[in-house]
């Protein structure tokens, strides 16, 4: 009796495993694809002056302040099978986002993007520009300067930004469910699965197990982020 109870609490069913695996897959994909773009956007916002900079800043931050359902709906309008961009991508390039896990990753990436850009931008802005100037006078062109000076010094912010984006992607619900629905095995993440289990009688045990998994993943992400930040401030203390 006791063993059956522990099994019921700690052993995930195949469906639940699928939801966990999908969540990690979607969150990792979202983070990996957002990262280069996020670094570029953060660098542009921190270092460049160009017309429409405030507008770009606003657009990047929009998913942070809009209701997630609205963001999901905009994605559906743009990138759904009948959307403006979606139809083009599907007809000419064979890329389909709607009702696919790739669509979920896109929605999660969009939602996590502002958090990522913010963290990276702050760490780039904290770098003394004269270090970049010094690299220039030593013969490094702007690309080398970025690769050898700016990026390594901004690395703590890049890691924190990536973790924030990953955590946001794991927990994303509103935009994802609006854009790609809640299909078990394709787009059903931990959050969507918990939501589904709470809607059916006797689903509490399932919901509880997935909740525990979500807590473990979130805690792990927070701890990694904390360790990275501590190491960064330790390193900073060395050269002050």
């Amino acid at each position, binding site marked *: 009796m006791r063993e059956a109870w522990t099994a019921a609490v700690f052993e995930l069913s195949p469906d639940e495993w699928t939801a966990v695996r999908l969540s990690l897959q979607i969150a990792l994909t979202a983070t990996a694809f957002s990262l280069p773009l996020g670094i570029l956007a953060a660098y542009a916002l921190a270092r460049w002056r160009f017309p429409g900079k405030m507008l770009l800043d606003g657009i990047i931050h929009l998913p942070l302040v809009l209701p997630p359902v609205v963001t999901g709906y905009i994605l559906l309008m743009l990138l759904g099978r009948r959307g403006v961009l979606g139809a083009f991508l599907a007809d000419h390039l064979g890329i389909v986002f709607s009702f696919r896990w790739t669509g979920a990753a896109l929605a999660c990436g969009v939602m996590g993007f502002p958090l990522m850009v913010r963290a990276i931008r702050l760490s780039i802005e904290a770098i*003394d520009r004269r*270090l970049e100037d010094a690299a220039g*006078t030593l*013969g490094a062109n702007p690309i*080398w300067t970025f690769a050898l000076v700016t990026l390594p010094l901004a690395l703590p912010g890049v890691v924190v930004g990536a973790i924030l984006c990953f955590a946001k992607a794991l927990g994303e619900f509103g935009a994802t469910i609006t854009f790609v629905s809640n299909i078990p095995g394709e787009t059903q993440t931990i959050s969507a699965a918990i939501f589904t289990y709470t809607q059916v009688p006797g689903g509490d045990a399932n919901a509880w197990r997935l909740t525990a998994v979500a807590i473990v993943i979130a805690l792990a992400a927070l701890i990694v982020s904390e360790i990275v930040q501590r190491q960064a401030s330790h390193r900073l203390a060395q050269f002050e």
Partner: protein
Amino acid sequence: MIRFDAAITLGAFSLDAAFEGDAGVVALFGRSGSGKSVTIALIAGLLRPDRGTIELDDRVLVDTAKNFFVPKHARRIGVVYQDAQLFPHLTVRQNLMFGRWFARRAAQTVAFDAVVETLGIGGLLARRPGRLSGGERQRVAIGRALLSSPRLLLMDEPLAALDEERKLEVLPLIERLRDEFKVPIVYVSHAVDEVARLASRVVVMNGGRVVAAGPVDEVFGPSQVHAGESRFGRSSVLTGRIAGTRASYGLTEIAHPSGTIWLAGPAGAAGREVHIVIRATDVTLATTRPQNLSVRTILTGTVATIEQGDGPLAAVTVDLMGHGHLLAMATRMAVDELALKRGDPVFALIKTVALDERSVAVTG
């Protein structure tokens, strides 16, 4: 050979300056806010002038009329900043190799080992900049700039952030760079003694304009150059030749047409030309040749200018016999009681104890 003629407006500040420099050290001298650092930034390519041309040797770096601008990474001009600006995430060795890696092999004019040895930083190579003292950091910064094989080295107050002891540790190294590696240097400073030790030419800036330029002893003679500074900051620079030493007393004898200058300490080999920095507050004036005094250095000359206001002090410039000017601070009362006026012959007394090896620089 650097030819600079450029103008730039940055907010409320405007710079419009023209000067030339040749081999050796050219000093940009002036108070903070006089435009020295902006000039350095323009030469290095960190700023783009509104108007003008900048040329190094026979290569044009900037010509606004032709809309021509060489970016900073293609100029091969090394910069040493006041606060070193070492890359904190790299070791000392990696910092030193940074510019070297970008310099084409054919263009590498200085050897790594020679630089490391000259600067005495061999023991620091594995460390990170955060663990270095101010003087060590500055030496590494100089090495890093030098190892990029620059055609010109810009030094923006490289000693300003160091205490007296560290300054004495780094200053001779800069002299060795000048003499051993033959790199032309533009040296920014507001310290007369540093400029006198290092530079052959000095360009004095004030409010974004060049107000004087020429050989160090000429420029630092006329007192108006330093007008407005505190009385302790005012000095003059004399050029002399080491005549010999009085080893039993530990003194050095420096010959100047107006008299013998005695120095408490070593200065260099006999026959070498030296610059001597003499603080105006260390000079006493007399209208007759004094006797029975402990002062050993007595120079002869005539009063050139007397600068005084309502305050208790007056600045007297003495044209020394032969060449050179000497600035003396005296009270206004003394000037009146001695009835000093322009053209009067005077004797300038300098306490030997006020001059030691820190006051001189061998220049030739």
